């Protein structure tokens, strides 16, 4: 059996690895692999933690208070908690210089999805129009991923946008606010559907609603934002741990892949690695090589490989990401009521908006506010801080935010390349410009969202919607797209490189379009598709 070398341990890499391990291949996974810190007090609820921890401020704000969000922090309403900082820590060698883009990368075991919110929405045929396969081709792989990770959801109004595949678990218990919104939607359904093209339903989330294998069902501890302490919310580390059970799996951590070495016949001979903080290089040989390091890192490795082989520095064009806009709202019916800390903290309601030619399908997720830190929120209210705190206490149960996601397309002006920072450091250069008409499309869609929220009994405070910087959604894709043209620096329909016959990609690098839905579930399904058709 061939020896397969996989770079990266993110969601797509580990699922691909598990599939080929099950087929009997020898797999070597190369990973920087930053390690998750231990889980503290796994049985305590969010509220109990503030009593039971010896140093709760350190847990919630960090040893260096790095999780404190001060005014001027780019207007974001939240930051990542300190115990997830390992997810985003970069090795010294990985330097970026970006224009119009704020990149995030992960070198952690499990990758970026160690900090995801669990959205698991399958793409439909409309989303896949530019792909060389249809939903029917991908469906068995969605089903298998759902079986592996556990995805909850319902057959509801959103089925018109997200196919209802086999293997969905019963939805999670709704928090009070989400239940109220859905109930209101039930009464105003026709209005929203016919007037606004707006549909609501249960989120599809990769969180168990009941026990499965060695993972327990959600126990509603309210700690999701700080990392699920029980493993109910799926993260790829669980699948990496499953890979470790196979004797034909070798995991090499603390290594950084600099580039691939090309041998005669345009085949990859080895991965050139160093220890992640520098040191001597080493070569890891294999028969087939798979890049699963995320679009930015995989692109960097590919470009450096080409540069080493030919001396040429190329630009990979077509970088995509989803624009996100946060729309805070207040549900007046819940003002003065206590909030629900012992509940699932992430989005429980999804929104689908069919805007036709304006922006295509627009995806939204409604997260009702529960146990998030409040200081980033109160400082943005247009009153003095003391008043803001007092108002917030009574408004908390009614607060929420809609995270509105827009699709993206490949455009030539958006690219990555290799270069240097102004200070002379080798870097991945990123250039991104939004599409013409984006501001108008956002404004029009926000009118729809605001109108929908008002019909659900919610007030949308003016001036508080926030257009997140490009790069914030971390759904990067498109630099080496699947194509039937065979053009240089594209991929074939099985995600094999058109340049190097034994190199494949299983992350978003090869996606030729970026629908508005969260990407990770589809990345995992595509990784299984590649494993099925190529191995």
């Amino acid at each position, binding site marked *: 059996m061939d020896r397969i070398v996989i770079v990266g341990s993110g969601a797509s890499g580990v699922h691909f690895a598990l599939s080929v391990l099950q087929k009997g291949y020898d797999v070597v996974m190369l990973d920087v692999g930053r390690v998750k810190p231990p889980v503290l007090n796994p049985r305590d609820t969010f509220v109990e933690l503030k009593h039971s921890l010896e140093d709760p401020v350190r847990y919630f704000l960090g040893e260096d208070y790095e999780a404190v969000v001060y*005014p001027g922090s780019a207007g974001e309403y939240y930051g990542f908690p300190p115990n997830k900082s390992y997810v985003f820590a970069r090795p010294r060698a990985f330097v970026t210089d970006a224009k119009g883009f704020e990149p995030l990368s992960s070198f952690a075991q499990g990758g970026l999805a160690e900090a995801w919110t669990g959205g698991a929405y399958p793409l439909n045929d409309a989303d896949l129009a530019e792909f060389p396969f249809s939903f029917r081709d991908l469906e068995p792989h969605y089903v298998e991923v759902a079986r592996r990770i556990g995805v909850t959801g319902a057959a509801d109004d959103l089925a018109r946008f997200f196919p209802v595949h086999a293997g969905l678990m019963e939805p999670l218990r709704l928090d009070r606010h989400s239940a109220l919104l859905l109930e209101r939607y039930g009464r105003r359904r026709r209005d929203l559907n016919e007037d606004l093209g707006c549909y609501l339903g249960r989120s599809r989330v990769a969180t168990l609603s009941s026990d499965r294998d060695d993972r327990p069902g959600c126990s509603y501890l309210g700690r999701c934002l700080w990392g699920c302490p029980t493993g109910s919310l799926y993260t790829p580390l669980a699948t990496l741990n499953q890979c470790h059970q196979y004797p034909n799996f070798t995991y090499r951590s603390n290594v950084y892949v600099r580039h691939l070495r090309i041998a005669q016949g345009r085949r990859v001979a080895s991965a050139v690695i160093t220890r992640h903080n520098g040191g001597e290089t080493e070569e890891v040989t294999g028969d087939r090589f798979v890049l699963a390091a995320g679009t930015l890192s995989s692109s960097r490795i590919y470009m450096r490989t080409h540069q080493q082989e030919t001396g040429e520095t190329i630009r990979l064009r077509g970088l995509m990401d989803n624009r996100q806009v946060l729309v805070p709202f207040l549900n007046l019916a819940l003002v003065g009521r206590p909030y629900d800390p012992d509940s699932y903290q992430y989005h429980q309601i999804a929104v689908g908006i069919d805007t036709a030619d304006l922006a295509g399908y627009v995806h939204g997720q409604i997260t009702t506010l529960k146990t998030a830190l409040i200081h980033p929120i109160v400082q943005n209210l247009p009153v003095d801080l003391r008043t803001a705190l*007092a108002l917030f206490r009574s408004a908390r149960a009614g607060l929420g935010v809609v995270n509105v996601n827009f699709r993206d397309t490949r455009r030539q002006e958006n690219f990555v390349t290799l270069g240097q920072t102004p200070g002379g450091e080798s870097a991945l250069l990123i250039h991104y410009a939004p599409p013409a008409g984006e501001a108008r499309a956002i404004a029009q869609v926000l009118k729809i969202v605001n109108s929908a929220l008002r019909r659900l009994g919610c007030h949308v405070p003016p001036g508080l919607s926030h257009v997140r910087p490009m790069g914030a959604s971390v759904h990067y894709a498109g630099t080496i797209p699947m194509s039937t043209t065979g053009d240089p620096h594209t991929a074939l329909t099985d995600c094999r490189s058109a340049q190097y016959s034994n190199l494949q990609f299983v992350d978003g690098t090869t996606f030729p379009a970026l629908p508005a839905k969260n990407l990770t579930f589809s990345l995992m399904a595509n990784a299984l598709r590649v494993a099925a058709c190529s191995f």
Partner: protein
Amino acid sequence: MPDVRGLVDLDRECAGFARYLTGLSVTDYVLEKYRDAHARHPDLDARQSPTFDRWLISIARAHPLGTWLADTYTAVFFKQALVRRKWILLVAILESTAPTAELFDVPEPGGRAAFVVRLGWRGLAFLLGLGVSSILFMPVHVVFGAVPRGDAGGH
């Protein structure tokens, strides 16, 4: 040699600001964390800050009325003021530990009707405070070289 007087001032500042913002007394743990944050982040030290920031902090420390006026002024014209950063740090600490966190978990009594009434008179109080503080602070802000600006929001 630790700056004992500085630490005592910081403790008084922490306790005074906490009482102003929340009506709560602080625990030794909160005082310790407030001091620790200042030790780790010299940019929170008023002695290193621009003149207007130092002046605002002295006003805010002197009396709850001064704190309130500084609060209304910085909410609109100087969101990144050092004193406001200190308050936000303190709120972050208070909400992260028991028993102070419990305050933020419970709505004010009286339900929605009381909220609306409180919203009304708090709004009026804010406007009054903003008016007074603008008259008192804005000239000083201008004299010390900074240009006060209203901070716009997003969309």
